[in-house]
């Protein structure tokens, strides 16, 4: 039984998008900064290739989500407060992660405390924060020629992208614009991969059961690779698949994965940052 939950709609109202700006702020997220920098770099390259100036505020650290979702709102508040000065202009803020984007868009204003002025600043930031893929599709209007060979990929959309940012159809649409790419949908596509931040550490049994099922469903599509716009899910899924490969003595990764930005860049004649290393 495939996709019993057909979610055509996020919990929040569909948003309207601005016209293509001269510049954007890029909020890379702490996970991308330290663990998957090439995904962030490729997203920046894609934006710059479209003629958009990308500003990378050097004082960016973290959206505060780990503390917030772990039940440490005061610690989250302190971190959020340190990030409110990063975006002085009125350019859109682009985030290569649905969950960090969702944190900024829906939770900063609530977590920042009772100070009305701070709340207003957080709300103003939230209003111009976009998940990278949604920005690329709806604001940039991405349409580049697919220069890659025919391939079949499978897509995982993070729960935050799906339910907080309402962008689960965006990844599909972007992939559909690549002429030689076939998207294979996996069983229980709308189900969580089991990452959930500290959930994966606090409840490893349940998290492992979820990610094991997710890996099996993704592999069952026969796709050559996984594409996702969230690095948390990507690390969870690919590191689980890698462990299965290790345990089975397979040298070749059975489920390689990369960020949507990296995939789009490579397919449309760009050079992904990771490939250069």
């Amino acid at each position, binding site marked *: 039984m495939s996709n019993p939950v057909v979610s055509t709609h996020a919990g929040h109202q569909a948003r309207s998008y601005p016209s293509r700006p001269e510049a954007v702020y890029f909020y890379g997220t*702490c996970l991308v900064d330290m663990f998957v920098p090439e995904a*962030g770099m490729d997203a*920046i390259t894609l934006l710059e290739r479209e003629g958009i100036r990308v500003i990378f505020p050097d004082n960016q650290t973290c959206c*505060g989500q*780990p503390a*917030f979702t772990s*039940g440490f709102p005061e610690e989250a508040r302190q971190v959020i407060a340190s990030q409110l000065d990063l975006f002085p202009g009125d350019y859109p803020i682009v985030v290569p992660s649905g969950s960090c984007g969702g944190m900024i868009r829906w939770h900063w204003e609530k977590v920042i405390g009772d100070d009305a002025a701070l709340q207003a600043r957080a709300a103003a930031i939230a209003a111009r924060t976009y998940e990278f893929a949604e920005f690329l599709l709806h604001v940039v209007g991405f349409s580049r020629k697919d220069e890659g060979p025919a391939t079949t990929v499978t897509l995982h959309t993070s729960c935050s992208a799906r339910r907080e940012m309402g962008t689960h159809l965006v990844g599909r649409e972007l992939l559909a614009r690549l002429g030689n790419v076939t998207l294979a949908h996996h069983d229980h596509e709308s189900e969580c991969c089991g990452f959930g931040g500290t*959930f*994966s550490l606090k409840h490893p049994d*349940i998290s492992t059961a979820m990610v094991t099922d997710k890996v099996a469903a993704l592999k069952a599509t026969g796709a050559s690779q996984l594409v996702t716009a969230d690095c948390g899910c990507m690390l969870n899924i690919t590191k689980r698949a890698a462990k299965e490969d290790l345990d089975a003595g397979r040298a070749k990764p059975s489920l390689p994965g990369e960020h949507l930005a990296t995939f789009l860049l490579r397919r449309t004649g760009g050079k992904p940052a990771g490939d250069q290393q």
Partner: protein
Amino acid sequence: MSHQPQQQSSGQPIAFVSAQALRARMHDAVNDPHLRQSFRGAMDFLMAKRAAQFPDQDELDSLRALSEGIRQYSLSKLPDLLEQLEANLTRNGVKVHWAETPDEANAIMLDIARRHSAKLIVKGKSMVSEEIEFNHAMEAAGVGALESDMGEYIVQLAGEKPSHIIMPAIHQTKQQIAKLFAEKIPGVDYTDNVDALIRIGRNVLRDKFESADIGLSGVNFAVAETGTLCLVENEGNGRMCTTVPKVHIAITGIEKIVEKLEHVAPLYSILTRSATGQAVSTYFNMISGPRKAGDKDGPEEVHLVLLDNGRSQAYADEQLRKTLQCIRCGACMNHCPVYTRIGGHAYGTTYPGPIGKIISPHLMGLEQTHLLATASSLCGACGEVCPVKIPIPELLIRLRGEANSAPHANPAMVGQGAAYDPKISFVWRMWARLYARPATYRAFSWLATRFRALTPRKQSGWTAARTPLQPASRRLRDMVKDRR
């Protein structure tokens, strides 16, 4: 203490379960392939049925917004509506009782039972009666309490507790039920034909409806303006319990109230469609009093027990109050990837699944429920399908905070600070210092990437099933600086 959730003895009240024991139960459940398979299949079935009931997204959005509005409106007038309900029920001839605790509720009902020298109480489905361990309290006092909902009957016969609020025996296969019936019901041979099994249950229970002294039921909606108790069901056992015995006792939480009769129309519709994917249930039973002069049947006495049991605590906090919007459809558990993998028994609470995680702390205190709020990836599937739009993930985060914070005066809930650990709090304080100071973070991340070879290969729960995480050799900010 047994860590086998499926073998939990029942009839026995839910005992205090430590976080450690709860963890062990979850571990056992998630590693039980039979349980995993049966819940996965059942949840897929229920999800598909629900989805088929809502082909029109606009209609669903509108109905959810309306249903949320009705529940919030009702809660905003809760004390007034309770008084109005009491006045109208009393006018209709229904006796209204109030109970702050399960013990008080059981004492009220036992008193009614004794007054009628009752030997047998036959029960329609009522999760509140589970919540107060009604069967146990009656049996301890020598009064029989027999479940008559087929699923509840099976669960009671097996000495278990319901594993789902709508489908209590969802964890049992028909073969297990066949074996159970053959063992426990005199004169019954093994058959795993479902029609035959239902016929067996029907025959046993019809005799009980005929002879029972008291019928007990829950309430789905209590209508203040008319003094009416509404019950939703498919089997007809609810009608039997509320019609045939001479006494009917209904028990409900104080939150299950609406002001206007017309408010039940949208709530009833979204309830059955969300719960089991039915356009409508077989019966919608609206009771406005006992047998009146001229009436030929119906109970001679009708009682309503209004139970608080922690609900007023949830009510006192604007955010936590949203838990009281619940209409008990169970859609959140049907769509929960955690519930799907551990089943209902592993939670150690009357109400399992996402809704159980947010209401149980009010009913039982945070001491024995704080771990539940952490057993969620916050994927949001529950909030997405909730027919009354309870922001379940947001409430889980709130409960994590209540559990983690150092105990303080005037806590919002009993057991606040139950998971407080000075060491963990210290770690998060350090984390905040690091990430709230960009220069410090830059130094830390520089070190972490340059010395990434020193990253530990064992990373707590992560590496049990995954290869280790290792920082990249260069940070995004380094790449950005060097670009072009």
